[in-house]
């Protein structure tokens, strides 16, 4: 046997690199690598030559320079003297803000529409089908532009709120809906507010612990512990008690009309609102389809079997249908969340200052550092996408069917 293998090893010929399955893959990979290296070095050579010809170089020093432009929607402190890096940070936070808001509302909208599409009410099902088809088949950019023009066209300008007998009034003296944006009361924190917030966090934690405990009891002893009312009580009562005990340490600051504009409170620019709205309503249509498909994918026998076991309707939904439907729904949902994050880059069209608007827009145009800025931009989105999909894949694996 050993002699046999040795003779075969001796008879290695060069042609075996092409004809023998064992060696052919090495040949192919070698050539693929060679071609790749050639392409990259060719592109690199062109890049170097072009840069030299245009008198440019690659350097990230510009990030330290003062940006010199203003950003009117921001979550952290920023002024026109701040660096480009700071501007990019503001942009990143704005991207994340609209993405998170969009994901939440798109999920709510999508799940509602998906369930209503399966409703036995004919007219509701048809309405939802129309919603889904209309929003799925028209580009998101057009929706963003339409919604922002509605927003600017329909809502009154801040000056309409002025005067003795204004054309527009604030809702409960708290919310002002203007074409420039929505003004809402903002919280002001006094001394002791930390205790209230701490209590609130603690009570939420205790709700989670209570529910876990209830589930463990259910699985181990078959005892059902009611968690509905205790949860609600835990949610409200301790926080409210502490709030008054410490003498109302968190106040509300109402927006007020000063000059030609509102001051104070929380301000969401029209561009943020219309982008948020457009992203959620567009992606909601896609999510609705996935939710519908997910629920339909659960065999009818499952419902009947659960009913035969004597489970009540809400238990059937929570314990039998949803866990199985979620397995179908979750993976596409991940990619929709990623899509929202990526589509939020269309903020450029309505002038919302997200990372594409700051780093890839004004910074790029002011400094002329196209290559550096676009590379950073891509890096940011790559990091976001890869980390979201990594986290979601872990979650996905935890709820997957455990097969073989």
């Amino acid at each position, binding site marked *: 046997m050993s002699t046999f293998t040795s003779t075969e090893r001796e008879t290695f010929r060069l042609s075996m690199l*092409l004809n023998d399955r064992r060696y052919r*893959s090495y040949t*192919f*990979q070698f050539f*693929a*690598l060679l071609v*790749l290296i050639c392409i990259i070095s060719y*592109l690199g050579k*062109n*890049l170097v*030559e*072009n*840069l030299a*010809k245009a008198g440019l170089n690659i350097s990230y020093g510009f990030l330290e320079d003062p940006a010199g432009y203003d950003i009117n929607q921001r979550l952290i402190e920023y002024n026109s003297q701040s660096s480009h890096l700071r501007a990019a940070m503001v942009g990143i936070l704005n991207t994340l803000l609209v993405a998170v808001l969009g994901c939440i509302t798109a999920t709510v909208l999508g799940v509602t529409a998906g369930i209503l599409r399966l*409703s*036995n*009410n*004919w*007219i*509701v099902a048809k*309405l939802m089908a129309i919603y889904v*088809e*209309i929003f*799925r*088949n*028209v*580009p*998101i*950019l*057009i*929706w963003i*532009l*339409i919604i922002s*023009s509605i927003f600017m*066209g329909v809502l009154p300008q801040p000056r309409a709120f002025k005067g003795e007998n204004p054309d527009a009034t604030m809702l409960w003296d708290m919310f002002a809906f203007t074409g420039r944006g929505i003004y809402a009361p903002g919280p002001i924190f006094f001394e002791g507010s930390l205790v209230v917030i701490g209590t609130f966090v603690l009570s939420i934690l205790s709700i989670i612990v209570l529910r876990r405990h209830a589930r463990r009891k259910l699985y181990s002893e078959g005892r059902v512990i009611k968690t509905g009312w205790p949860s609600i009580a835990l949610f409200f009562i301790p926080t409210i008690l502490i709030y008054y005990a410490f003498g109302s340490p968190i106040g509300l600051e109402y927006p007020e009309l000063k000059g030609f504009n509102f001051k104070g409170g929380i301000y969401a620019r029209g561009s943020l609102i219309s982008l948020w709205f457009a992203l959620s309503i567009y992606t909601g249509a896609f999510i609705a389809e996935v939710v519908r498909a997910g629920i339909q994918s659960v065999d009818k026998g499952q419902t009947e079997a659960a009913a035969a076991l004597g489970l009540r309707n809400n238990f059937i939904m929570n314990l039998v249908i949803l866990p199985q439907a979620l397995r179908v729904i979750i993976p596409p949902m991940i990619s929709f969340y990623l899509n929202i994050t*990526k*589509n939020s*880059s*269309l903020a*450029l*069209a309505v002038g919302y200052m997200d990372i*594409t608007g700051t780093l*890839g827009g004004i910074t*790029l145009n002011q400094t002329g550092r*196209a*290559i550096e800025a*676009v590379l950073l*931009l*891509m890096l940011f*989105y*790559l990091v976001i*996408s*890869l980390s979201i999909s990594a986290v979601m894949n872990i979650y996905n694996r935890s709820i997957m069917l455990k097969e073989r």
Partner: protein
Amino acid sequence: MAENNASFVRHELIKEQVPPVSERGLVKWVRENLFSSPFNAIMTVLSLWVIYSIIAGSAPWFINGVWNASSVRECYDILDGVSGACFAVLKERFPQLIYGFKYPATEYWRPNITTLLLLVALAPVLFRKLPRQLLAFSIIYPFLAYWLIWGGTILVPVVAFLGFAAGVYCFRRFSTNAFALGVIVGVIVASIFWLFGGYLSEANETFLSLQAVPSRDMGGLMLNLLLGTIACSVSIPLGIFLALGRQSSMPIIKWICVVFIEFIRGVPLITLLFVANVILAFFFPPDTSIDLILRVIIMMTFFNSAYIAEVVRGGLAALPSGQYEAANSLGLDYAQSMRLIILPQALKISIPGIVNVSVGMLKDTTLVSIISMFDLVGMIRGPILSTSEWNGVYWELFGCAAAIFFVVCFSISKYSQWLERQLETSNR
């Protein structure tokens, strides 16, 4: 059989009665589908109210629409305070919306014919019942379309086609012995054809020539369709190769594909368009100038192919491994087993996904308006809304753009559902 004469026994059947009113016809349908429970009744009333308010709000706007006016001022004068649309802008700027503002007006017939021929060329691909000979036209079509849209001498597309045909012929001839040999000979023969043909067409620039239109003059809906069609048709084969590469057992090839696909899928299309706009030119040789539209097509093709690769990979993964093993045991080599056994089945599974991705691509072509190209949305945002005549007519214009995209995309997705049913061959 004793005759039963008891008076209380009925002798003949009662005639069938009509069901009660609540159990038949419209009433039954309404009861079951609209008012089956109190909650449903509330939902129905709510929906009816929503429908009513939408119709009541928009009907006068449509009915009072002004179709003949030369500016938005004139529109408002005609409407005289009544709510109404100003559709005149669509009528007056129709050519701009469709062809962009630079395409020569005398040549509008060319894109029109190209679009009509596109339908003819697509027909045999889309509907399998049509005679197969029509496919010959589909193969010629890209070259013909290039000549019609961009103009210039007909020799350029003819040479390109002949080179392509010669290459394919040689490939067919030599690939019976070895696949790689066929590819290499085909490429060499085609290149020789193109090289000599290039001299020929440069020498006779006026031969059967249409007025040449540079790429930067393309615009409007035409640009959207152009970008969408080219990017989709090129990216489908590219995506299939990427998917096969990702499934490959050779680590280097696999990782090249994985990195490419994940990179493209991880970034938004808009950043890739930035690359096309400001960076890609740096990677071409210093003295060449590749126009923007071609750079955008390159990036869009890459983008679309990464997504198609993922769809096809799903199709490949869904095939039972028995299919791969059966192909191997028949003694087929890799190319044969893929072409004859694996891909036909995998692609059939991936059709809905491929169509979804392609519809998405067509919709995403509107993003080029952000890098200041004048596609349909770019035309509306730029040259139309910024003029003093039509400043502020958002709804009509964007509504029209939305309607156009809806019709195109909706019909494509309906076609894909139909095709799925046609290809359904499972034994269930």
